[in-house]
């Protein structure tokens, strides 16, 4: 609604500039209102008619988290049901991380959380409080591409480019994990990342080159 505050935007610490404990008190207050609603549906319906429900729910829905994304600390207020993927794409405008299925089946949404490859579509943002997230946008060192990014370009490890960020994030982790010792091992440990264009052999070549090149990944 036009007169509403835009809750899709990242919020500063605490709602409306409140300190966290104040926000927490408000949260408790609001959640007890909701409990009351649950016990007295008539009131809830009336509140809904008066458009209270939306405002109350909106406040109730938000939780504060602090995430370090690509080296930058971000204090955010998110709904508990928001995935890391949707947080990145829809609220933080980091659209390099891709949505391909929302079920953890395609790998396009792969990011690193505390150095481990993780499917961001299956991870709730509120559960990452205090963690370090690296997305494809944070892989290069300024203008200098990460060796895996260079190798993907050199070996043409993509076509349409949509699965590519996920492939690269997985590929970096695959090498770091020590799972890139043979073509077959790479294929096995990269099989969670689907490339429908079918650039698989080129991706394997790119990973091999980085692995054998001995650069720091």
């Amino acid at each position, binding site marked *: 609604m036009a007169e509403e505050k835009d809750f899709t935007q990242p919020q500063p610490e605490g709602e409306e500039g409140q300190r966290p404990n104040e926000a927490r008190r408000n949260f408790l207050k609001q959640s007890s209102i909701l409990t009351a609603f649950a016990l007295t549906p008539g009131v809830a319906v009336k509140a809904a008619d008066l458009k209270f429900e939306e405002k109350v729910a909106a406040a109730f829905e938000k939780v504060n988290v602090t995430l370090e994304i690509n080296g930058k600390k971000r204090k955010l207020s998110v709904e508990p049901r928001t995935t890391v993927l949707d947080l990145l794409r829809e609220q933080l405008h980091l*659209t390099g991380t*891709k949505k391909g299925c929302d079920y953890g*089946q395609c790998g*396009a949404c792969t990011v690193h959380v505390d150095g481990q490859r993780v499917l961001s579509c299956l991870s709730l943002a509120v559960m990452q409080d205090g963690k370090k997230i690296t997305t494809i946008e944070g892989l290069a060192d300024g203008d200098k*591409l990460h060796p895996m990014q260079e190798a993907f370009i050199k070996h*043409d490890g993509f076509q349409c480019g*949509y699965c590519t960020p996920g492939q690269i994030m997985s590929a970096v982790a695959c090498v770091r994990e020590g799972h890139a010792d043979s073509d077959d091992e790479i294929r096995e440990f990269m099989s969670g990342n689907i490339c429908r*264009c079918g650039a698989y*052999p080129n991706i394997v070549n790119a990973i091999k080159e980085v692995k054998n090149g001995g650069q720091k990944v």
Partner: protein
Amino acid sequence: MDRVDGRLKVTGAAKYSAEYELPNMAYGVLVGSTITKGRIKSIDTKAAERAPGVIAVLHYQNAPKVPGYIQAAHPTEPKPVGQPHRVFYDDKVYFNDQPIAIVVADTLERARYAARLVKAQYEEDKHATDFLKHQSKAILPTHAQRNPKHYLNDYVKGKEDAYKGEPLKVEGEYVIPTEFHNPIELQAIVAHWEADNRLTVYDKTQAVIGTQNAFAKEWNIPVENVKVIATFVGGAFGNGLHTWPHETAAIIAAKKVNRPVKVMLTREQMFTMVGYRPFAWQKMGMSATKDGKITAITHEAIGQTSSYEEFTESVLQQTRMMYTSPNITTRYRILPLDVSTPIWMRGPGEATGAFALESAMDEMAYVLKMDPLEFRIKNHTDRDPERNLPWSTKFLTEAMQMGAEKIGWKNRKLEPGTLRNGEWLVGYGMGVGTFGSHRNRASARAVLRADGTVLIQSATTDIGPGTGTAMVQIAADAMGMDPSKITFELGSSLFPPAPSQGGSATVASVGSAVQAACNSLKKKLATMASGNAESSFKGAKYEDLAFKDGQVSLSSAPNTKLSFTDILKQQRLPELEATEESKPDNPERNKYSMYSFSVHFAEVQVHPLTGQVRVTKMVSCADAGKIVNKKTAGNQMIGGAVGGIGMALTEGAVIDDRFGRYVTKDFADYHVPVHADSPNIEVAFVDKPDFIGNPLGTKGIGEIATIGVAPAIANAIFNATGKRIRELPITPDKLI
């Protein structure tokens, strides 16, 4: 040369359609029907409307009317055969998960939640989704019924069904299940009414101009008031060649809420709302002489379509033109079912047809105790037997020899099941593919700028083959400039018109236009240089000039040079522009038959106890004319082979006919090939130009990369096991 957009793609900076952020944007989530056929009795939207953040819930009763839905076709236009599904038009349900409502909310989470609260009551009719059960209801497509000369009519050369009376023959039925394109990018659109009659869409499409025209017609607004942006397309494989209900739903919603609306389909919706390769039944009959000359082929095919739109594709072309045979019969039918409309999927029609034809070739060769490679070469034809014309170019035999060498065809045993690697049975197979070498009208704009760079624009798209890269190379060659000085922009309806990216025709069509625009720019530069009274180029003709390294020089005196930028300076011009349209108007074209050709070789291992199939090696060779960029073209061939592995071994929709609903609706159930399914794939090109087709000498690659792959694998499995599987995908249960 590396891809020009490689850096954008590996850094996450490439922007796909769902990634445009517009101020005040809202999110739309579609609600699908839970029945397959019938009508909506009522829709209860109250709970959804009350849910937090919901702005609107739209359905057929309250959605703004789409003027194009009711507008009668112009009397001069041919009467359409069926029509695309009109979203929110009325209460009718034609297929399961048909969009019946859209929920618009201020965040994605809220829209998604509220969409689950919409409940509809239906009056259900009996549906038909079981292809094989309803097969007898197949019909000749209306186009063919209306026009006896239409290519979809029955075709008889020589004697009809002549194989039946022959002593040496094979006969078999083949089934291909419904297959889904499943690009990794989900279909998405951001629809934005910039004014009452001015629409901008950021849309996943293979055709920006086609989409622009479709929406202009739908909303009854001038074409120039519709802007379509598709700068990056995350794969499509054909499903961006049609406008789909979700696109119009987003536009309707944006109109109603007066805000930009983004709709991104879910993976499940990718199985019901954006087309598929249709289920097909085929029957092949073939006969040959003892020494291996084909005497007759009969090829019948029935493809699935929807109840509201007739979808047809060319399944039988390869059978009509690939091999010499005095008798050829083909029959094509379609079967309308209560499903959504199919759409061309990579190697449309021909990939289906080639599975039957190239399997039958293998079966026939086996009956004759002949090497299938030798059998194909024996029936090679130097003219198109269907049209009785010479080929513009055909180097298929060369491609076969290259491939046979690389796969190690000499290791193949004639007798199946006789080659082993440990406990695994080993087999080799091959399959041939072909697709028309097409070219369409296209245009491009070239601008030479004061800094010596050239910008080229055309309203084509790049769904992955590397169109931008090829165009930069074509322009660099034409201009005599380093590719780093050239930028190619695509994917906007503001650019000069170009056809859809489909039918393997982009380089031939758009590439020719880019070359023409560059040539036009050079002519302008030549005129300026030679028109300057003080210049040493005075009076020089265009033909006397050479263009190299961003400079014009006299062919007779290469040291007499003038840079492009100096010409602009002399003329006091900030830039110089040339726009050209290029079309296939070379009369020579009518004297030839033009096709691309491919041949695929597969080495497989089959585990006799578990039925597991491993494709251990593939070699794909193509006669695709001149290759502009071996790296991207090679990658496209690899991708086609991987797609063919999916078609052969893993991909197939399963529909629960009791409900008319797909059981396979995500990647856990519908198996596209993953890294572990994909072996080393070697690619070889004949790389000989075909200048009949276009001035660049190219032929298409995208389709032939996958046509013929599935039969190559099926034939290799036969060679390994002696089991002939005529129903795809060849899953382990069929081999044990």
